[in-house]
């Protein structure tokens, strides 16, 4: 197999799956169930995860694989994120197989295809070492999620959610792109390894600083770090619950992977400059996220603010030394993905397509009607608080201890104080689940949990529990995966028609 093909094998499989789903969609008569397409997408995602394992096998034997003129670098780091994204997508697809059977949805096929395409973009983000490739991956994933967030079309809230996500997402993309352009200006390249080399000798460090700040703003929007979080509650409230589970974890994981690679491998020289910005983002996200969540009555909005706060805890890990930051941040991403996707899968099952259960009051006393789902939701909420024996505890533990080792003890203290505040709103929802039902309460659609959704729930619960009981194994795995810059062999491509020397002379004079 050629190196280029090997380097993009998981993405290629997912793209083909998406195309196949779209081709097969018109063959199914209108009104018939679209479930087979969902199974096709699930098979494709499984195949893509297997391809990632195959890549891991090769990488372990021969070292990192590069392809497409060294714009793609497949190493243990990118494979970790490939597997994480594939798992998130798999769980989301399983949970949403029966989701579309409830409402009068005629376009469920598009959903399965778009999820595959979005995952392709996210995977590209994690394995690109060239900022323009990162940008294209970011756009593939963003455009898919813009459409997915407005998937329940015909509803005013769905369109509003989509338009808000679209406008603010594109706004952020422009900042990210301007950052890339300034990086190109400062170093003459957009490859992360070449940027690292170029920044050391650049004559215009100001451009480099501006570029880092711009890229941070752009990615800050994508990971919904405060003060760039304003879209999060609105979009999460209007989007379908399984989509929120996907887009609150997978694109964020990809964006954090880009951030790790860019900050530590590309602009490690400016560590003292960007660490200040990271501190501001982390403290603002934790504080605004937790205080905002205290005021919410809508459960999805509450979880949206909680995800802002979680992004803040994750950013705390960035304040450490290189290796420890990579380990703690990767572990946090995985634990956060497990518990947050799990929580939204439960919400999908509880409230259904029409989302009859919205506010915390609607969830009061639900444990009597749906004991298993309520118990699972309670477990995920405990993990989000960070109770021991859950993935959330060790995620926070590693993140804060990384900050302490990096000499940012105050950041860890702010984080701990915030975790205390966070207990209030998570426990408020948990207490509501297990208290006496209100009189005029809407009934949850009491259906049995379908088998695919049950598998999804079991997988997320097992992952959350597993990360809480055996964290060392995963942590060693991710610490080993810290990526290195590979030397760039190719010489920079010169212009076909360089400007005349006279012009250069005139400029220097």
């Amino acid at each position, binding site marked *: 197999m050629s190196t280029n093909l090997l380097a993009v094998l998981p993405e290629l499989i997912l793209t083909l799956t998406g195309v196949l789903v779209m081709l097969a969609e018109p063959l199914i008569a209108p009104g018939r169930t679209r479930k087979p397409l969902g199974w096709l997408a699930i098979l494709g995602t499984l195949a893509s995860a297997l391809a990632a394992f195959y890549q891991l096998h090769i990488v372990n034997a021969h070292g990192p694989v590069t392809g497409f003129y060294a714009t793609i670098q497949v190493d243990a780091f990118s494979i970790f994120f490939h597997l994480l994204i594939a798992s998130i997508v798999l769980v989301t697809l399983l949970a949403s197989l029966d989701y579309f059977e409830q409402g009068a949805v005629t376009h469920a096929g598009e959903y399965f295809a778009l999820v595959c395409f979005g995952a392709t973009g996210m995977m590209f983000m994690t394995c690109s070492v060239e900022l323009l490739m990162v940008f294209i991956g970011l756009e593939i994933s963003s455009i898919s999620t813009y459409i997915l967030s407005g998937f329940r079309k015909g509803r005013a809230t769905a369109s509003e959610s989509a338009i808000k996500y679209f406008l603010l997402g594109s706004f952020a993309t422009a900042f990210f792109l301007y950052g*890339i352009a300034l990086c190109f200006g400062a170093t003459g390249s957009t490859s992360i390894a070449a940027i690292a080399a170029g920044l050391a000798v650049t004559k215009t460090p100001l451009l480099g600083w501006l570029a880092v700040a711009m890229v941070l703003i752009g990615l800050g929007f994508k990971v919904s770090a405060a003060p760039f979080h304003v879209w999060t509650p609105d979009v999460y409230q209007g989007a379908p619950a399984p989509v929120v589970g996907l887009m609150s974890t997978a694109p964020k994981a990809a964006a954090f992977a880009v951030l790790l690679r860019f900050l530590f491998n590309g602009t490690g020289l400016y560590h003292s400059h960007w660490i200040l910005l990271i501190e501001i983002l982390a403290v603002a996200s934790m504080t605004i996220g937790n205080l905002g969540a205290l005021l919410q009555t809508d459960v999805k909005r509450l979880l949206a603010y909680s995800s802002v706060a979680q992004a803040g805890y994750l950013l705390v890990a960035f304040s450490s030394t290189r290796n420890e930051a990579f380990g703690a941040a990767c572990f946090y991403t995985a634990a956060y993905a497990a518990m947050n996707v799990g929580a939204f899968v439960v919400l999908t099952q509880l409230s259904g397509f029409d989302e009859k259960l919205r506010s915390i009051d609607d969830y009061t006393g639900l444990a009597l009607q749906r004991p298993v789902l309520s118990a699972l939701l309670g477990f995920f909420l405990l993990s989000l608080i960070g109770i021991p024996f859950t993935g959330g505890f060790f995620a926070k533990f590693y993140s804060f201890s990384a900050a302490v080792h990096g000499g940012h003890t105050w950041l860890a203290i702010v984080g701990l104080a915030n975790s205390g505040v966070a207990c209030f709103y998570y426990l408020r929802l948990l207490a509501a689940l297990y208290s006496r039902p209100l009189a005029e309460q809407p009934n949850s659609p009491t259906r049995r949990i379908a088998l695919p959704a049950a598998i999804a729930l079991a997988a997320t619960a097992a992952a959350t529990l597993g990360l809480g009981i055996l964290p060392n194994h995963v942590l060693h795995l991710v610490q080993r995966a810290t990526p290195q810059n590979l030397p760039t062999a190719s010489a920079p*491509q010169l*212009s076909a028609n360089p400007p005349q020397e006279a012009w250069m002379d005139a400029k220097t004079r």
Partner: protein
Amino acid sequence: MAVPIAFYLILAAILFSIGIAAFLIKRNIITIFMSIELMLNAVNLTFVAFSHMWHQVSGQIFVFFVMVVAAAEAAVGLAIIISLFRVRQTLDVDQINLLKD
């Protein structure tokens, strides 16, 4: 006489700032969308200017990628705008405020 590179960069920065200001001030969704396109075009100008400065064609190739992506984004964005208009009969952002607590 050749125009110094800084002039192009300053022009691009001004265009980008106008885009940001319009994004924040304007109330019609189509106009807001146009201001995002303005920001992307300011980035394109920056890329071309730097590409000239570094004598590298790659900067000019990036511009094509950005244009392609912007076109894809415009297609999706306009579709979302149409679906919003069908439901709400308005494109004024101040009236699109159903989602709040």
